[in-house]
């Protein structure tokens, strides 16, 4: 196997980001619903959030100087990797309950996997971040696993 991931890098597995708390507003649901072309009235009216609304709700808001020249905010949870070009990514979301305006949601993110594979055109690094979203009472709302491939 490859040797790009040092012991120090692998020690980041299990690392967590500080919890984030966000208020769900009808206006933000409506904006998201219009932008994604939703057709169901409950989403367009902001009565309930569409299934992937949390992607917008928990997108990192950073100050201008913290954006890279290409406009990306660096995810502090991911250590600096020896391969830096992002390839395909994937998402898996398990839903526990719906999201409504007025909800206050908390997200906890953990780096749950970091490994290396040999691709047909060279080495690849895979990582996985798991985001657990709960309500203020700690009841699970959804679990999202994001996988990214770096080349």
């Amino acid at each position, binding site marked *: 196997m490859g040797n790009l991931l040092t012991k120090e890098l692998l020690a980041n597995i299990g690392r967590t980001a500080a919890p984030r708390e966000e208020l769900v507003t009808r206006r*933000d649901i409506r*904006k*998201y619903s*219009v*932008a*994604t*072309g*939703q*057709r*169901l009235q409950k989403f367009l009216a902001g009565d309930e959030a*569409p*299934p*992937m609304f949390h*992607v*917008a709700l928990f*997108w*990192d*808001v950073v100050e201008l100087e913290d*954006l890279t020249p*290409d*406009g*990306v*905010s660096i995810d502090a949870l991911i250590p600096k990797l020896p391969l830096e070009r992002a390839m*395909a*990514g*994937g*998402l*898996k*979301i*398990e*839903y526990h309950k*719906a999201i409504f305006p007025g909800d206050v949601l908390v997200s906890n993110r953990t780096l749950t996997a970091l490994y290396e594979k040999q691709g047909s055109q060279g080495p690849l690094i895979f990582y996985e971040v798991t985001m657990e979203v709960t309500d203020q009472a700690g009841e699970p709302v959804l679990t999202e696993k994001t*996988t990214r491939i770096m080349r």
Partner: protein
Amino acid sequence: MSIVSRIQSIKSGDLLPERQFKPDNVQLFLYNSALWNAHRIHYDYPYATEVEGYPGLVIAGPLLGDWLTQNVVEWLDGDGRLESIEYSNRMASYIGEVLRSGGKVVSVDQESATIELEMYIKNEADEVITPGAAVVRFSES
């Protein structure tokens, strides 16, 4: 049709209705604004083409994922809930392309009223650019 008779009528291989999408600059701008995503490949044409070498402005990956969820939720039509969805962005797509979402039933468990779906976003060349899978459970709301 009652929910019970609806799920009894669903078989492996049944197709979900396809939906066509032709995202333009306005939609892509609003989507990335709603996220607060400033990545230049989605709005800065000279940067996307000359610096990153893309043939055009790149459609945001999670927007394609959202379209898969819409396909499932509209097919459910209030007769149950989306339990899980997964997808991967395998190939990029660009402003100007016509894409379509769709899917098919791959398994039906009548006892638990649970159905597994295979989902896709395809481009005009009929390539699956975003394959996915979903699990839904039918129930009275």
